[in-house]
């Protein structure tokens, strides 16, 4: 069975169409009615227009124009009424905006509305008499000019009261009256010239009183800042400010001259800086700025003289004061250059200003440094170095050393390493041996000290740039006078150079002898003296050998002989039979004497 029978289908189709027709009929009726209404209104507008009643004509025309049901052809009279409609709408909108701005006391918006009103008025007057007359009539009906007049008269009164109140209470923070008075249109002062004169007199009186009061109670910065702020406000309002600048210049000149006379450098710098900050408002030929420049020049000249006479600290203090006014980077660079040349220890002071260091050594042309200084902080056990590399850039290194801090003696080896890259040796009291020895080479590119060796022994001597004799080292070569080679990996044991034969007593005597020798040497050669100097002469005398009862270690030790202090009787498997106190004994020197 079909969903809808022809009877039902015809019913729905007809009824839907009927609804559509009814809607269209309502729309058509509305359109016809509105079209008729528009036609009637246009007829009325034309009648009023012909009777020269522009207000009523425009009113009827605007009502007709608002009806969009039908379009009518433009005619000369309708075009004029259309223009009058625009004028009326603009004035109504303007009146509304002005009223809102006045009620909310929005000065900017009120001024904008005022300016807009006059702009429209001029435009209407330029067009033709009919438009101008219509404009005036509508403006009068809306009472626009009365609104503006009441608002600005009230604003002028309040602003002047504010000026008086500020002067009475000596409170000059709120200066909004400047803007208020400046934005009140000329006509409410009686013309542009009268406004200019009246406001200039008022502002001059205000600023003089303000300067007087602030100078008594405030600082130079506050006074200058306040006057500058006033200046900005006047400029913003387009008000002439020459009188204010001259007032400011007079005040500043007197104050800055006073600091010069009293040679109060810090205060001079403060005032000069504060005044220079207002440079944008000052004339290009400001007397005060010229005075400041002259005084700064004098002070720089004085600092340069300090430098030339090697009174670097004084020069530096002066430069630092003046740095708040001028760029002193070049002067400081020159100062540092001269100071380092005069005293390389300055490098350490400059690079580690918060450290109190003992300068150990200074020098030039080592490790790729033009000049360098090495310092030691005994309290922290840290070795510091500051240098200028080949490019003149400052480099600083620091390394904590784990050794007996109090006994540490630093020296620059004149034997080990190359001439360009000597080794800094450190000798300190050892734990397992008498001494702990450390070899360090600064690496400026990596900004670190490279440790070449770290060993403990009873003594040592550099015999060649890469050869060291070590007495009884810990580890390889123990109980020997061993020869070590200085290689890239550090010290490498090479061979037994001689037996190490010394009893504790001898050792003590020998140490004393070493210390005396060391002191003597230091006295003679100063800082660069090696504390091990003098020992090599004693080392051969100390080469001793155990004497065995037979040719082997399994035999009993029957005594000890010093090198060259025996007579060889026979040789057997590397063992020597010697005459020992009337008897025969056996020794086995690792190196043939």
């Amino acid at each position, binding site marked *: *069975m*079909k969903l*809808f*029978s*022809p*009877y*039902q289908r*015809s*019913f729905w*189709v*007809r009824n839907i*169409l*009927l609804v*559509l*027709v009814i809607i*269209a*009929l309502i*729309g*058509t009726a509305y*359109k*016809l009615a509105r*079209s008729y209404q528009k*036609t009637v209104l246009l007829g009325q507008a034309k009648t009023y227009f012909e009777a020269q009643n522009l207000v009523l004509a425009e009113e009827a025309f605007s009502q007709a124009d608002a009806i969009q049901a*039908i*379009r*009518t*052809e433009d005619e000369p009279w309708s075009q004029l009424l259309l223009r009058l409609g625009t004028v009326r709408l603009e004035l109504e909108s303007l009146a509304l905006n002005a009223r809102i701005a006045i009620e909310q006391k929005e000065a900017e918006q009120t001024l904008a509305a005022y300016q807009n009103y006059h702009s429209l008025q001029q435009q209407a007057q330029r067009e033709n008499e009919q438009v101008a007359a219509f404009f005036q009539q509508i403006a009068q009906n809306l009472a626009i000019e009365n609104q503006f007049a009441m608002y600005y008269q009230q604003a002028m009164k309040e602003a002047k009261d504010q000026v008086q109140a500020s002067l009475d209470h000596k409170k000059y923070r709120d200066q909004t009256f400047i803007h208020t008075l400046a934005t009140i249109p000329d006509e409410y002062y009686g013309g542009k010239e009268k406004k200019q004169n009246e406001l200039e007199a008022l502002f001059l009186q205000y600023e003089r009183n303000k300067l007087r009061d602030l100078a008594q109670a405030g600082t130079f910065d506050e006074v200058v800042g306040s006057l500058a702020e006033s200046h900005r406000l006047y400029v913003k309002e387009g008000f002439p400010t020459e009188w204010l600048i001259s007032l400011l210049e007079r005040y500043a000149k007197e104050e800055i001259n006073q600091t010069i006379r009293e040679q109060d450098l810090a205060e001079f710098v403060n005032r000069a800086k504060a005044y220079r900050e207002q440079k944008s408002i000052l004339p290009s030929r400001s007397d005060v700025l010229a005075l400041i420049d002259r005084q700064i020049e004098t002070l720089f000249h004085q600092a340069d003289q300090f430098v030339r006479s090697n009174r670097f600290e004084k020069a530096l203090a002066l430069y630092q004061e003046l740095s708040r006014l001028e760029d002193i980077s070049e002067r400081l660079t020159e100062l540092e250059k001269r100071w380092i040349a005069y005293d390389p220890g300055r490098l350490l002071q400059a690079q580690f200003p918060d450290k109190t260091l003992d300068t150990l050594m200074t020098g030039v042309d080592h490790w790729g440094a033009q000049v360098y200084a090495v310092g030691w902080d005994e309290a922290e056990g840290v070795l510091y170095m500051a240098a200028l590399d080949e490019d003149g850039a400052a480099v600083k290194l620091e390394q904590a050393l784990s050794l007996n801090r109090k006994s540490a003696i630093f020296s620059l080896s004149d034997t080990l390493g190359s001439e360009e890259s000597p080794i800094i040796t450190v000798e300190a009291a050892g734990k397992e041996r008498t001494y702990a020895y450390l070899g360090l080479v600064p690496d400026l590119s990596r900004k670190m000290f490279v440790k070449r060796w770290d060993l403990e022994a009873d003594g040592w001597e550099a015999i060649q740039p890469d050869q060291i004799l070590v007495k009884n080292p810990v580890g390889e070569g123990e109980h020997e006078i061993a020869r070590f080679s200085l290689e890239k990996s550090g010290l490498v044991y090479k061979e037994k150079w001689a037996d190490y034969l010394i009893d504790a007593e001898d050792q003590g005597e020998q140490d004393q002898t070493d210390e005396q020798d060391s002191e003597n040497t230091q006295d003679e050669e100063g800082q660069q003296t090696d504390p091990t100097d003098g020992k090599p002469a004693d080392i051969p005398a100390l080469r001793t050998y155990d004497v065995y009862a037979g040719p082997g270690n399994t035999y009993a030790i029957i005594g000890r002989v010093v090198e060259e202090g025996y007579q060889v009787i026979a040789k057997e498997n590397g063992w020597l039979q010697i005459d020992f106190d009337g008897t025969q004994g056996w020794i086995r020197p690792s190196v043939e004497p």
Partner: protein
Amino acid sequence: MKKRVGVQFRKMQKTAHVYERLQTCTRCHTYHVLWDTHCSECGREYQPIREVAAKVTRRYVQTRFLLLGLFVLLAILCADTLTQLAVGCAGGILVFVCFFVMQRKFGAYERDVDFLRYLTQETETIKKSLLLHQEEIGFDVKEERIKDAYEKIREVGQFLHSDTIKLRKIMYLNHFVLRKDMELELESLLPTTYDKDFVEYLREVVKVQPQLVKRSVLDYVNRYKSKILLHENGEQLIGQIAGAALRMSAYVAEYQELIIEYIDYLPRERLLRLARMISRHHHEGGWERLEEAVKRRIETHHSFDPDFHGVL
């Protein structure tokens, strides 16, 4: 032999056209051919199909008017100037008048065309409604409401012409005692083939309403007389049919062979009528054999009957 019951059939509605018997429920979208006046589903009154079709046509016309009106109104709404507005209004009125005149002139034709289209569109629905009626008939038979079943199938049979319907009608009619005052049918029940029940029905009908015997019935009897003779008293039945054919001289002329063959089974009064008819038409050609057979029958069986004297 089944026991026949006496019934009184309700009067059948007389219509000029069969479709006038068709009614529809506009809400349920169903059709009805019986005597009910209100829809059994929704209770709404059935409406004659012709009226409904006329309403649909009227609505089509209204729809066209509305569509035309809508276009005119849209034209007016879209008018931008006064001139366009006036043109729109005037054009709209003109179009309306023209359309109205045309509608008045050709509206009647449109109604007939629309009615035919309506029937064509609704054929399937009508068939379904008749099928529902047949189901009702079947239900009545089950409930042994044979009279109701006959009355309903008599109405349905106005639209469906098939042996099935005819035979069912005959079956239902054979349950009733037939009387003269009944609205009986005969010609419309003729099956396309021989049917025993129809012959039995024919025997009963010819007794009470011999005027229902018409040419088609005579043809049927003539065609299947050999089978009819096999019925009990078949000769008498054919004789009665032949007697019924004497109502019109045209039938006598057309079926004189049948009359001659079964002249012995004609009742006396039918024979007397035949003799008088022959005496009136003996000057016409083609009646000679019949006249001879009638004379022979009168001479042998009614020579002493004064009513026959001088007839031939």
